[in-house]
């Protein structure tokens, strides 16, 4: 029809706007030579003035990693393809060149602040207005932390991982590796040996953290593998909500990101962990882009505890990620809400694991996958009910939405039940954005892109409503930006 001309010109226009967050900053960076060896690990550990036990732990992890066969260790079973990773061709440590850690925002390198501005994170204003404390991770070292004082009064510890190693070594020694052991999987293993920095949170008994805690990760130095390490411990009867948001600038060669996140919830504690992931997905042809191989796991250690993962994933060339919950305490609850979008040549293999150990444990999974272009989206979910888990319950819902006819969606549930009292329910659906729906919205004056966007965010609502409000708005924007060029 005659409208074809219009949609073509709109499409060209959209392509100019591709990845608007593609820029790099020229902050001087202190880089350790490429490659991985005991020596490099010694350097990393000593640069951070770590205690001996931690260096030993790193070295133990390194030896275990070395002993693994690379081909067996990497997750070949996942439905993702990527070129061979040369682990000797990666910088394992990069720190912004600041002789002293900044004491306040005034001490922060202006260029670095500008980079945050471009990302839409004006630390000094928006974050405070929104009541958000930001522990901003620039490459590998935390550069600024706000709200620290207010949190201190409540006894909440929110700091960089390195600071926590210095100031709260007992907590770190007690919980590091208690949820994800160093030997867990190839990438978690590598992380344990070389992790750079990340966030640490401890919420004392009976304290409800009054603000959303938040970290922005940003991969900046060329070819710097990012090995973040995050640990959150919620003590008895406490509550904390944590937001993690990411964007990365355009880089030519692919970048490896192998983070580890451990959550520990003690009796009646609740941890809500929300992620917005928007790393560089590579060009339309599939060149470049971030490899996101991350291990996220929570342990409901105490009776009646609860851990929720909520994630909106739009970025990275390859995502391999299964936020999980070990339901050890009786009556504990694990939740997983996810929207994963793949466009062009992006590949995502994500899902969750719920491991029921305690009695009356419940888990709830809502996984939504949106595939556009030639994107490939796989949901892989495991629900495991151990013999001890009397009366365990799981509800799983997997929905796929296809945009166009070159994309794919796959659902792979693994279910293992060793206690007959378990109740498991599984629902799955695959749908397409219908022409009728599009016509309806466009007849009311919305352009094609906006109409798609409205249908898709509506479809994702069950997950979005789990996000804190400002984050939900941002998540909607992210979906919009990520789908540009996919419709029309």
């Amino acid at each position, binding site marked *: *029809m*005659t*409208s074809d001309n*219009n*949609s073509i010109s709109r499409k060209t226009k959209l392509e100019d706007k591709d990845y608007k967050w593609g820029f790099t900053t020229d902050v001087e960076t202190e880089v350790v030579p490429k490659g991985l060896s005991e020596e490099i690990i010694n350097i990393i550990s000593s640069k951070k003035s770590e205690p001996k036990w931690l260096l030993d732990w790193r070295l133990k992890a390194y030896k275990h990693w070395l002993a693994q066969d690379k081909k067996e260790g990497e997750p070949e079973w996942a439905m993702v393809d990527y070129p061979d990773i040369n682990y000797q061709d990666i910088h394992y440590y990069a720190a912004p060149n600041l002789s002293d850690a900044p004491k306040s925002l005034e001490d922060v390198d202006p260029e670095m602040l500008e980079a945050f501005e471009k990302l839409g994170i004006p630390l000094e204003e928006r974050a405070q207005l929104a009541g958000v404390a930001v522990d901003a991770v620039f490459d590998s070292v935390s550069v600024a932390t706000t709200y620290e004082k207010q949190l201190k009064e409540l006894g909440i510890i929110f700091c960089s991982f390195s600071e926590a190693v210095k100031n709260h070594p007992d907590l770190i020694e007690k919980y590091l590796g208690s949820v994800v052991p160093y030997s867990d999987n190839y990438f978690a293993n590598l992380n344990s040996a070389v992790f750079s920095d990340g966030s640490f949170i401890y919420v004392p008994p009976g304290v409800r953290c009054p603000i959303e805690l938040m970290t922005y990760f940003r991969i900046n130095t060329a070819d710097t593998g990012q090995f973040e390490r995050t640990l959150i411990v919620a003590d008895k009867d406490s509550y904390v909500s944590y937001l993690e948001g990411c964007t990365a600038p355009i880089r030519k060669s692919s970048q490896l990101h192998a983070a580890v996140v451990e959550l520990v919830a003690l009796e009646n504690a609740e941890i809500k962990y929300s992620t917005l992931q928007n790393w560089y997905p590579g060009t339309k042809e599939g060149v470049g882009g971030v490899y996101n191989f991350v291990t996220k796991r929570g342990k409901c250690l105490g009776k009646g505890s609860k851990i929720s993962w909520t994630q909106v994933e739009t970025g990275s060339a390859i995502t391999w990620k299964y936020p999980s919950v070990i339901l050890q305490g009786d009556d504990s609850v694990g939740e997983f809400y996810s929207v994963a979008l793949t466009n062009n040549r992006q590949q995502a293999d994500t899902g969750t694991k719920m491991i029921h150990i305690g009695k009356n444990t419940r888990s709830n999974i809502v996984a939504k996958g949106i595939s556009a272009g030639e994107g490939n989206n796989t949901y892989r979910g495991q629900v495991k009910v151990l013999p001890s888990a009397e009366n365990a319950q799981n509800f799983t819902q997997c929905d796929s939405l296809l945009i166009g006819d070159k994309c794919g969606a796959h659902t792979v549930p693994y279910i293992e039940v060793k206690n007959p009292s378990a109740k498991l329910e599984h629902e799955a659906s695959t749908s397409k954005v*219908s*022409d*009728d*729906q599009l*016509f*309806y*919205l*466009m*007849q*009311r*004056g*919305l*352009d*094609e892109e*906006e*109409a798609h966007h*409205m*249908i898709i*965010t*509506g*479809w*994702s*609502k*069950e997950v979005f409503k789990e996000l804190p409000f400002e984050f939900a708005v941002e998540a909607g924007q992210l979906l919009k930006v990520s789908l540009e060029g996919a419709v029309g």
Partner: protein
Amino acid sequence: MDNKILEIKNLKALVSETGEEILSGIDLEIGDGETHVIMGPNGGGKSTLVNVIAGRDSYEVSSGSIKFKSKNLLNMNIDERSREGIFLAFQYPSEIPGVRPWQFMKAAVDAKRKANGDPELSVREFSKIYDDNLKKININSDLMKRSLNEGFSGGEKKRNEVFQMMMLEPNLALLDETDSGLDVDALKAVGDAVNNLRDSKRSFLIVTHYQRLLDHIKPDFVHILINGKIAESGNSDLVKKIENDGYESFA
């Protein structure tokens, strides 16, 4: 002056997928402020005609022309036509999961205002107009807390279409069997809504099967569409003829 808001000349349209011709040479002119009614047997092409006017691309215009406010409508996208002032009340409105009617209408009203160079309405300004119109058409505001059209009854969907028309204040409203499936109160509410909107700047093209709608809305012209062609045009008297003799006498 006698201005035509819509001028259709020798319009032929096919189903894009199959090439099957549905509209076989339609001529129709609607003047500013006029109300036209189209009647005709099932499958005659009434819905196709209003969908083609709205720009639905499952149909292809094979010949002829449509002008709206003297502009060539066939060069415009669906959404452009809408923002120019064309509104279609659907025979079967779509359900959009997760999308709130309020959010949808705000986006639609803002899109139109933006195209006209007007600033977006503030939430407060918009909400006032929204609530007023809901009251006028007598829609329970609890209904509007659901997803758009999801779980709405047939009549509720139709009322919601009329509500949207009131919100968007089009210059040409195409109502496709908006009166079907309505109870007597709803029928009156729809009739009132249309009559309230009738003025010298707004025209209506109303597709219906029932004379009873015409007890509420007095049309200026009535057309009979059979087999993709307008078989006869006239005034309200034509409706009586249909009631008495059926469509066969026109074929």
